[in-house]
């Protein structure tokens, strides 16, 4: 069970990191990027291949991010002068091109056979000393304390806003409920980590630790930039490029920056994706992955980094539930024998995969009807005229 939870945290955190890149590009800057997986592919392959040829992991990862950013630059220079819907078409095409190159350039990527046995962070640390376990614990706790503090500050800020004076009927405060649930979730995740570090350490626990640290760093730094004047320019581009240009902002350069930075973040996410899979081939980088990220960003609320991370957790949890679906069906079948139908046909992996996409789509439709702004999005924004 613990192994599974660690796997869940790694998966969700990878999605979160990947989606933070998309959120910067689309949620903040308004760039319609439908080829986000291309950055992940490039980041993953660059990192893995370089580390296989002996380049230190950290250097390989940074280079992976840089190459992904360069891909962003190439895409940007050739397409950012286009209107946004054309950008969407070009990016989706570019991501397929990247995947096909990975599939066909066998001298470089081993094509469909894929790459395996590459190193990942803390792979060889099978039994850490008490001291390093203590260090890990401290780091892990610090991240969660930091997240909790952010949550608390966010909650306080909500209170500062002037509220309409109408008397509120006494009812459950949704914000309080939200903060309570997120708090519980956070404590739960923290406990998983603590137990894994202290009693059941294995190589992926180290990976989880590194990944969550990187995620926290990226979140923290991108929050700072997005809330700074730099982020204000990006949001202005999302609203109206002509205005930003008339006010002296170099529109093209800012859009390029957003595309490159989002790409670099996705490149790092790609490295972690590869490390978690321990084996990659081009099939791991299909267009679906792009739309997982879109689901996550839309779910959490476009433009909100915190929402993106929450969306990734929810989406990751949903995927896990779908993975357990055969067991759930079996269980139901065992207690209610009257369930009709051929059990083996229902729990066939192919069918379940298709069912998963259907359920994701259905859930998104329901969410968009009930809460079109996403979980942490701001409802007022939807009612504004242009």
């Amino acid at each position, binding site marked *: 069970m613990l192994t599974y939870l660690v796997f869940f945290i790694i998966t969700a955190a990878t999605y979160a990191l990947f989606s933070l890149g998309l959120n910067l590009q689309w949620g903040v800057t308004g760039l319609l990027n439908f080829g986000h997986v291309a950055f992940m592919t490039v980041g993953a392959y660059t990192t893995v291949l370089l580390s296989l040829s002996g380049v230190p992991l950290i250097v390989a990862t940074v280079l992976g991010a840089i190459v992904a950013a360069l891909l962003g630059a190439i895409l940007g220079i050739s397409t950012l002068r286009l209107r946004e819907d054309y950008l969407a078409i070009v990016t989706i095409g570019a991501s397929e091109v990247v995947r096909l190159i990975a599939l066909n350039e066998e001298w470089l990527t081993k094509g469909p056979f894929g790459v395996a046995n590459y190193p990942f962070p803390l792979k060889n640390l099978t039994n850490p000393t008490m001291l390093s376990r203590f260090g890990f614990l401290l780091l892990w706790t610090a991240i969660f304390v930091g997240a909790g503090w952010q949550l608390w500050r966010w909650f306080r800020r909500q209170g500062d806003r002037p509220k309409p004076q109408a008397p509120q009927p006494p009812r459950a405060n949704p914000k309080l409920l939200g903060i309570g649930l997120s708090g519980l979730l956070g404590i739960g995740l923290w406990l998983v980590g603590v137990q894994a570090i202290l009693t059941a350490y294995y190589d992926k626990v180290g990976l989880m630790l590194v990944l969550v640290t990187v995620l926290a760093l990226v979140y923290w*730094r991108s929050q*700072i*930039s997005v809330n*700074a*004047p*730099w*982020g*204000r*320019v990006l*949001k*202005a581009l*999302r*609203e*109206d490029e*002509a*205005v*930003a*240009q*008339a*006010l*002296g*902002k*170099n*529109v093209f350069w800012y859009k390029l*920056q957003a595309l490159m*930075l989002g790409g670099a973040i996705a490149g790092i996410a790609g490295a972690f994706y590869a490390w978690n899979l321990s084996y990659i081939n081009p099939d791991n980088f299909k267009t679906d992955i792009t739309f997982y990220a879109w689901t996550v960003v839309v779910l959490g609320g476009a433009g909100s980094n915190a929402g993106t991370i929450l969306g990734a957790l929810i989406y990751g949890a949903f995927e896990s539930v779908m993975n357990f679906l055969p067991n759930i069906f079996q269980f139901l079948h065992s207690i209610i024998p009257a369930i009709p139908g051929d059990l083996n046909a229902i729990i066939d992996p192919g069918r379940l995969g298709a069912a998963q996409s259907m359920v994701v789509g259905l859930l998104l439709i329901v969410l968009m009807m009930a809460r079109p702004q996403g979980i942490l999005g701001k409802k*007022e*924004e939807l009612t*504004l*005229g*242009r």
Partner: protein
Amino acid sequence: MVDNAPNGPHQPTSGNDTLESLVNVPSDLAADLDDIEDLPRSPEMQLPLLAASNLVKSFGGIQAVDRVSIEVAQGSITGLVGPNGAGKTTLFNLLANTLHPDQGRVLFDGEPIQNLPSHLIARMGMVRTFQVARVLSRLSVMDNLLLAAQKQTGEKFWNTWFRPRAIAREEQQNREQAMHILDSIGLAHMAFEYAGALSGGQRKLLEIGRALMTNPKLILLDEPAAGVNPTLINQICDRIQAWNREGMTFLIIEHNMDVIMSLCDRVWVLADGKNLAVGTPAEIQANEEVLTAYLGQ
């Protein structure tokens, strides 16, 4: 029809007044001082702040702007009028380089700018507003203004990580300036609302405020009074005159002749993409050609 330019042409009372002084002096008081002391006005001819000559722009077969020239004197309020389709907004786009002219030269502050990208022109001190007010809906009114501040340290990505103190200090200053401007355009109470929640007239004001926030030398206003109620038009005119007295230069496209006549020192008339006439508001009003083309008499 018109109360003819009551304040007359204004030379800048001083060269480079900061916006703080601009917004701290109540406009009526400044007007009084102006009248009483009758400040000396420099008689020497200055180079025009903006001078465009022989601009040409065609869209397909249509010659939207055909060898048009225009000059805007330093410290003036210059009007640009003409019937619909005369090429006024196209000319604005050419001046601000949102569109690039097929031919012609534009000198701003003594430098040729017709080949510069438009964001650099804004940085040089020429800023425009749009005919249909464009605000950044999902940003607050305050953020709309803050965006306009020029040369912000925090607009460079790495600075957001490595120079947070400098950015915080700058933001504080900019916020104060923005609040002054919001006060002067009567939007202070809306500062933290979404700009998308503003009414049409308020958006016009916000646009002008945003233009001011760039600390420009010249503001191009595209129909500041269109779709605005008469009281608000008067307020906008008063503000424009007050800012002009502080040294700001304006070029205004406007269909409302009352506004043009009461504000402008000099009026340029376009028709069918060509220069038709230029002169003081009184001269323009008396010009037969203009009356035929524009006022339809």
